[in-house]
């Protein structure tokens, strides 16, 4: 496979959009109610070690990705099992995010259109961009991030008059229990999911430190998620936020400037589609790299189209309804994703440090 490389800025932007992902519309840390902002801050703190592990692994094995590192650290057999697990995780995550998008389209935008149709269109876009490589994804991310930021700023200026800053009170009304629950939920979705990006950030062109790239990406991404959470809370209040499926859509839908500027929730949908597109593309790319590595294929492009289509069918079949989706996201996902986001990365780091130090000692001796 020829080496495709992206710049540090592109890597950081992909990570920011990856974090924003479906969080922009679904919200994060919702179990904490009015203290969701506190849960997100705590989740960000908890995610810093995971991001540092990612950076350290990429620095220990320059030019290699997660799958190469798995083979180096765990050996051929265990390494392949690890690759298979992460390929499954990438495929499943892509399907989960695509389903979030499908549910949003069916609930809010196009209720009479079969869910599979908008999902297929987004999947086709993701397949197209992944076929052209990570460089195309990086450049697309840079461009679309600017569109996202402009949209967010414009919507902020229009929603300012609707904000009631007292909605944040009372702080710690429900105690620390829901805050911890929200923090663990926000940790697993979306912050710690960024470990999957080590599968595609195998080479960064301009030699910037991975710590700077990934840490800044995490902080900026979490800052944006926090900002959106505050906006939704100030506009909707705790009661409404707890009772809508898509708080951002509901919040922006309340904008009414002079009876002229109304129903601008389409802007939220634009940001959502951009973020979802980037996240699914990154997951699809990771899955394709993994499948190519696992089966010793010449190029990952061989499997992109079929993997993308399988992700779409899987997304369509994941749940029976939106309630099941929300239940899985809030109650089950943290436990399911924990091995992929915490246990295996820690084992990889320990194994990598031991192997590299032994290698250095052998070279020195």
């Amino acid at each position, binding site marked *: 496979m020829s080496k495709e490389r992206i710049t540090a800025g592109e890597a950081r932007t992909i990570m920011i959009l990856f974090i924003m992902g479906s969080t922009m519309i679904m919200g994060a840390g919702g179990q904490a109610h009015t203290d969701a902002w506190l849960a997100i801050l705590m989740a960000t703190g908890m995610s810093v070690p995971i991001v540092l592990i990612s950076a350290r692994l990429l620095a220990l094995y320059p030019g290699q990705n997660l799958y190469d590192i798995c083979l180096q650290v765990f050996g051929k057999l265990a390494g392949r099992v690890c690759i298979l697990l992460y390929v499954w995780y990438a495929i499943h995550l892509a399907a989960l995010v695509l389903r979030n998008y499908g549910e949003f389209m069916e609930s809010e935008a196009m209720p009479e259109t079969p869910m599979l149709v908008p999902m297929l269109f987004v999947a086709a876009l993701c397949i197209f961009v992944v076929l052209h490589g990570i460089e195309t994804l990086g450049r697309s991310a840079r461009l679309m991030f600017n569109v996202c930021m402009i949209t967010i700023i414009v919507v902020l200026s229009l929603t300012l008059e609707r904000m009631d800053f007292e909605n944040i009170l009372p702080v710690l009304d429900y105690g620390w229990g829901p805050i911890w629950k929200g923090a663990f939920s926000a940790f697993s979705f979306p912050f710690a999911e960024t470990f999957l990006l080590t599968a595609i950030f195998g080479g960064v062109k301009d030699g910037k430190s991975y710590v700077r790239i990934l840490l800044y990406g995490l902080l900026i991404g979490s800052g944006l998620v926090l900002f959106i959470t505050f906006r939704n809370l100030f506009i909707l209040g705790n009661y409404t936020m707890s009772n809508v499926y898509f708080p951002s859509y509901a919040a922006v839908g309340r904008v009414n400037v002079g009876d002229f500027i109304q129903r601008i929730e389409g802007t939220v949908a634009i940001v959502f589609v951009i973020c979802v597109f980037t996240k699914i593309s990154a997951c699809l790319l990771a899955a394709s790299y993994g499948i190519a590595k696992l*089966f010793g294929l010449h190029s990952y492009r061989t499997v992109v*189209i*079929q993997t993308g289509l*399988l992700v779409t*069918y899987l997304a369509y079949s994941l749940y029976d309804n939106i309630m099941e989706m929300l239940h899985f996201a809030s*109650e*089950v996902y943290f436990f*399911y994703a924990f091995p992929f986001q915490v246990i295996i990365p820690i084992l990889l780091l320990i194994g990598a440090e031991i192997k590299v130090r032994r290698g250095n000692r052998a070279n020195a001796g």
Partner: protein
Amino acid sequence: MILITIIAYAFIALLDQVQTYKDGRKKDFLFSCALGLLSFAAALWVVHGEKLPSPTRPIEQLVGWLFGM
């Protein structure tokens, strides 16, 4: 709908598998064909109104068993 699916997959095969075959990558071609057949079967299954087996329930059961939820 089944006819549309068949036409769509014929088009995909033309873009994907045929190109891989022309590039002379035999292993990639065979793997792509296998994955393509799986994807085609899944597509026909979905078009027929059925859903693929969902991993959600088994994952919930596994998590429930491991963590006593």
